[in-house]
């Protein structure tokens, strides 16, 4: 049997989420109090749409919410989302409830009321925007293996020293590799002969010690995380000494 997801309220979020969940093989039901929005939502293939106020038990009953796997409350109002999730949890025995909230300070309160997952749209959005706005040159995507290995996204500006150079000409540290180059619509797997162009986005895989050095060589700027890991440096020296003796 298909896993069932119920989306309550919201419109653009609901539509995007519904399309994505249906593609993943879920059976999705949407509940919206606005008739026009319901008509619009009904255009999504395989999406069941119910018109009504999702914080009313009889609407949830009509939509057959009972025993659904996931209920996601996406209305604009925190109080509505709270009541919807509590109803789904307590009356309709939904296995997992997710609430969208606008006021981040209520997160803990929502968890205490028994809601399984609370998403604060504004904080999430703000952090994504911040990442894009401030870390323009570089943003660390993933830190792997106790953060000694880093995967970073580096944008090459027109004034960067690496522009129009072939990769073998760059003299990058041995611990650094350019894994991928994204150039407009094209994705390039770099070879030594590949020339770096202005506007390229490089996916850089490096140890955390050499990351900043590599970024400086590529862009001319020091990365946002300019701190050197002291203990590792000491360790490195010690190891070098051991090799010598």
């Amino acid at each position, binding site marked *: 049997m298909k896993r069932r997801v119920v989306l309550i309220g919201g419109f653009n979020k609901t539509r995007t989420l519904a399309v994505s969940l249906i593609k993943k093989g879920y059976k999705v039901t949407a509940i919206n109090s606005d008739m026009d929005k319901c008509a619009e939502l009904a255009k999504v293939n395989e999406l069941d749409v119910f018109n009504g106020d999702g*914080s009313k038990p009889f609407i949830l009953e009509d939509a057959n919410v009972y025993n659904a796997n996931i209920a996601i409350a996406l209305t604009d109002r925190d*109080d509505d989302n709270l009541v919807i999730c509590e109803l789904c949890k307590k009356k309709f025995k939904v296995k997992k409830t997710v609430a969208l909230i606008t006021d981040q300070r*209520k997160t803990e*309160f929502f968890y205490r*009321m028994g809601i399984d997952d609370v998403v604060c749209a504004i904080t999430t959005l703000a952090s994504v925007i911040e990442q894009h706005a401030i870390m323009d040159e570089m943003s660390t995507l993933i830190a792997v293996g106790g953060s000694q290995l880093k995967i970073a996204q580096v944008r090459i500006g027109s004034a960067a020293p690496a522009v129009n150079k072939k990769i073998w000409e760059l003299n990058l540290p041995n611990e650094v590799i350019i894994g991928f180059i994204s150039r407009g619509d094209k994705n390039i797997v770099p070879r030594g002969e590949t020339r770096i162009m202005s506007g390229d986005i490089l996916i850089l895989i490096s140890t955390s010690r050499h990351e900043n050095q590599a970024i400086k060589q590529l862009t001319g700027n020091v990365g946002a995380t300019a701190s050197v890991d002291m203990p590792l440096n000491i360790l490195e020296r010690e190891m070098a000494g051991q090799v010598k003796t």
Partner: protein
Amino acid sequence: MFAAVDNSYRRAYHKTLIQANHMVDIIMDRDFCEGGSSVRLMKPKKPDDYVIIIGCGRLGANLANTLSENDKSVLVVDKDKSSFRKLAPSFGGMQLEGDGTDLSVLYDAQITNASAVIAVTNYDNTNIMAAQIAKEIFHIDTVIARLYDQDCECVYQEFGIDTICPAVLSSKEIDKLLKDTGGLGRAAI
């Protein structure tokens, strides 16, 4: 501007608080003491009397006026300033403009000192959330919510929130009137 208004409320509240504590120091209740060998302090007046009303609609305003007439200290919270006009000119309590489900507004209202919180906005879900916040976060003993619709009972019944449903009350009252006036020969509802 808003902050300034807030502070004036706070000051006003602190003033009443100080006065109340002062009274406690002076007034001693000898009736409780047998033999008169010891004096006992009267229970502080304030914690029994501080009531927060969320929502200044007709019910909220009426309630605030009544409580204020009975010498309770009352604070009314409403996000719409213009709704405070419903309060009587003689209303001696405080007004606070803001969302009654916003934690910072509730801190401004000194909710931790309140003996009762009454949620009477015109929207059921807001009342449920305000009542749950008062009960679960601030552990207020007496929490009352007005709900037009009692369908969501399972949501709040376990929290010990008292609810009032106008439709149920009205039908009971009408039933009583019918019985009293003999409108129903054998009323058995």
